[in-house]
């Protein structure tokens, strides 16, 4: 049996880089021309990027931060970590990267009022989510955290799509001093949220979930694991589920209901 083209849900395509911009000293935003992917990608999904100019064997997973279905572009943000991301940062408009995607399940978009919580590069997939929620009719609130004001550049991207933006920094250089988890209880007391969406460091997601659980607000989290195939075939990326089993972050996730995996 051979899958007809129109039943395909994933593509591996050579894409042209539309732009690849330094946002912070160690954070870049890249846009690639990938119409097949832009057409069908959903918030929470990711792209497995092959960076041939790096001496890498494996692809690198990056969350979809935005798509423009008309232009056929997909936007991603990445932080410089190791050789893959450093090599990607050297690539220029017009260069080619092979993109495999869209991969993963994506967020389950609920009705009612949503709170989006992100830390670090976790904000990238949440940007696409905020846009989708806004399109559905009700803008979400955003709680975003970082170490200091230098790290906080996300507001301008989120502004069109969210209602309130609440910022925390570890050192108080911007917004409320402290962690997102310090700000959360108060926000939950003030506003009724139907769903919380979180992406960030494991420890942050765990604490957010604890607070949300207490208040009875359902919570979706987006996990990160090292991934080889990205398509559910190699079992590199599993997470323990609370029923004692294991799931694949690449295909069963990266988005899970918090109670399942935290």
């Amino acid at each position, binding site marked *: *049996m*051979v*899958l007809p083209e129109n039943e*395909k*849900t*994933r*593509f*591996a395509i050579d894409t042209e880089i539309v732009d690849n911009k330094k946002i912070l000293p160690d954070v870049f935003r890249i846009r690639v021309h990938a119409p097949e992917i832009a057409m069908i990608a959903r918030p929470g999904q990711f792209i497995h990027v*092959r960076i041939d100019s790096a*001496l*890498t*064997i*494996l*692809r690198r997973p990056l969350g979809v931060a935005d798509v423009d279905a008309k232009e056929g572009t997909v936007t991603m943000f990445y932080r410089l970590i190791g050789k893959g991301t450093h090599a990607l940062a050297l690539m220029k408009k017009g260069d080619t990267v*092979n993109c*495999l995607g869209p991969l993963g399940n994506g967020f389950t978009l609920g009705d009612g009022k949503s709170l989006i919580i992100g830390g670090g590069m976790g904000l990238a997939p949440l940007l696409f989510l905020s846009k989708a929620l806004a399109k559905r009719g009700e803008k979400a609130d955003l709680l975003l955290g970082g170490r200091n004001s230098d790290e906080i550049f996300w507001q301008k991207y989120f502004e069109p799509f969210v209602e309130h933006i609440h910022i925390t920094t570890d050192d108080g250089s911007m917004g409320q001093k402290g962690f997102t988890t310090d700000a959360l209880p108060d926000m939950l007391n003030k506003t009724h949220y139907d769903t919380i969406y979180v992406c960030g460091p494991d420890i942050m997601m765990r604490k957010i979930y604890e607070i949300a659980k207490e208040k009875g607000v359902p919570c979706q989290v987006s996990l990160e694991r*090292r*991934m*080889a*195939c*990205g*398509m*559910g*075939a*190699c*079992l*590199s*990326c*599993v997470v323990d589920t609370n029923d004692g*089993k*294991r799931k694949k972050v690449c*295909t069963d996730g990266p988005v899970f209901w918090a109670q399942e995996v935290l």
Partner: protein
Amino acid sequence: MAMATSERLRTHLCGIDMASPVLTASGTFGFGEEFADFVDLSALGGVVVKGTTLKPRRGNDGVRMTETPGGMLNCIGLENPGVDYFLGDILPRISKYGMNVIVNISGSTTEEYGELANMLDVDGVAAIELNVSCPNVKDGGIIFGTDAKSAAAVVRSAKAHTTKPVILKLSPNVTDIVSIAKAAEEAGADALSLINTLMGMAIDIRTWRPVLGNVTGGLSGPCVKPVALRMVWQVANAVSIPVIGMGGIETAEDAVEFFLAGASAVSIGTANFRDPSVTMKIISGLDEYLKARGLSSIHDIIGKLKVGE
């Protein structure tokens, strides 16, 4: 993507009719269905599914994979849903793809290999591959794979309990792979596949801890190709049963090296992660290689390495 099958590539391997001599390696290609968007599964010689055990297994904890120069280490540790679930749920589901399903099995005892072989003696299973070389679990067979006598015992146990062809998968972590290959042939193995992963390790110099949850892991990818090719050549020269060669194959040219060294078929593992449709490119590249040389069959190059003079 429907591949035009080429008569040049059609082959038989221990009785299995194969559209091409290009298989996918256990543990790297799921149950085949994961790659249906990218691969015409029926154009493959077969899909060797993930290592299957009697009971479901959770595999190893912690980090399971890390990249290395020219390759990767994995310590998945045989996570799988168990043979019952495979037979009840997965096999019926994947039968629609019209591919040869070869089941890679692991046991903790010789008897378990027999039991598994018996349970898998069903329609829809093309052959059984005995994994006696998983370096990532203590009871996953590595003991059987590094000793000729135990390897032979496992083969006999499997052969006694199934009518399917039995393939023994050899470990490269041995002093003398030829003696194990010969013992397996004598014990009745229908084919041999090699190599499994080389045992390796990586350390995180910030935390002073092993990168992998299981401390050590199995090395695969292009970096192991020279070792794999050498072993395939040694083994193919020593046995008369067919050899399935694997280890770092990324291109049709790589595959040709393995055929010349004596492999009757090749298996593709890690390369699927880089390019999910790599097997299709290898198949058409092989066909072109033969065509360009006026050769009518893949058999015209198998074992044709010229040594000496």
